[in-house]
């Protein structure tokens, strides 16, 4: 017999819940400290915006601080810290998938033009540039 009557016993581990349903209620202090850390990071963000660094370094710094802030909000305010494994998984999935979109789309723009200019996929771009530029220099030197 494939299935039998349900007599109302305890559910097994199939689908219903991942363990107990006792919920952690963080204290007010916990939220307060979280806020404080976020505020410090906010000041850091703005301050970092005025550092004299290159644009790309600026982006890296800004994004790093933003990621730290986002992780703090997700873990403390959104209570993922106390969540089930599945909540962890979902919280990560969206950002992971976004990275795929970013990585591919960017890869196109970064590498697109190089192909047209540097035929031959056996040679890396940098090799090609340096060899041609130095070759040029040599030629000029010989003149």
């Amino acid at each position, binding site marked *: 017999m494939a299935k039998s009557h349900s007599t109302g016993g305890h559910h097994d581990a199939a689908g219903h819940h991942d363990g107990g349903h006792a919920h952690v209620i963080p204290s007010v*202090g916990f939220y307060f400290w979280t806020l404080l850390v976020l505020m410090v990071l906010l000041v850091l963000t703005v301050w970092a915006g005025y550092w004299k660094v290159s644009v790309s370094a600026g982006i890296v710094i800004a994004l790093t601080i933003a990621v730290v802030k986002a992780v703090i909000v997700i873990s403390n305010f959104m209570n993922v810290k106390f969540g089930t494994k599945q909540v962890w998984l979902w919280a990560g999935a969206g950002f992971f*998938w976004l990275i795929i979109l970013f990585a591919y789309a960017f890869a196109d723009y970064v590498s697109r033009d190089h192909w047209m200019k540097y035929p031959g996929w056996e040679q890396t771009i940098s090799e090609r540039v340096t060899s041609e530029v130095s070759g040029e220099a040599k030629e000029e030197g010989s003149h």
Partner: protein
Amino acid sequence: MSNTTQDLSLDPHGAHGHGAHDNPHLGEQFEDIAQQYDTYTVGMWAFIVQEVMFFGGVFAAYAIYRYKYLEAFSYAHLELDVFWGTVNTFVLLFSSFTMALGVRAAMLQARKAQIGFFLATILFACVFMGVKYVEYSAKFDHGLIPGHNFTLYTEHLNEVREKHPHVAEAVEKNPALVPQMELFFGFYFAMTGLHGLHVLIGIIVIGALVIRAWINKNKPLDYMPVEMVGLYWHLVDIVWIFLFPLLYLVGGH
């Protein structure tokens, strides 16, 4: 800090009353309140994943143009007001804090505290929108509306020269930067507009929760909707955490 652990089940008969749907907060399709709680949490997170991809599409486009038009975007962002941006970040972070406390109060069935915290959250959200209004109208006055009134870098270049002479100089040398800067403001309005829309929806939903709490002041309430809206509100905060540095700060001052 001390975190309390508590059984929040509202099921008067304990956790496993099969088929016995005597808990008014238990959906018909669920077996017990714990299952309902887990389901709502996972559902909300799946929705957040969706939101991340939704904003992610426009973030990806922005990132690519930031890479393509590095110079123009670095000039254009100088027209954004870091002060107001910082104020708004502060306001949103604080509203996240009051939201978290509001959800906590709802879990503890502290109705008055919940209403208070939610009203505070709404207040902050309105401040955010007010600041956005100030910023948007400033852009409008300065001729920074792409597609319709983008004249700051052409007709009113002298205004730029006063504050950022190097930008005015660069634009004079290379007028091709202007459409690229227009694109920056296109992204600015698209991204902050989309985010502002989410804030607006948040205000409405939190308002509805306040009314719900007000009407049922003396009844125990299902706190699940409150917690879900809380998650949504924090997401809105996270989006801004990324928008603020990417639009206002990156590129030097």
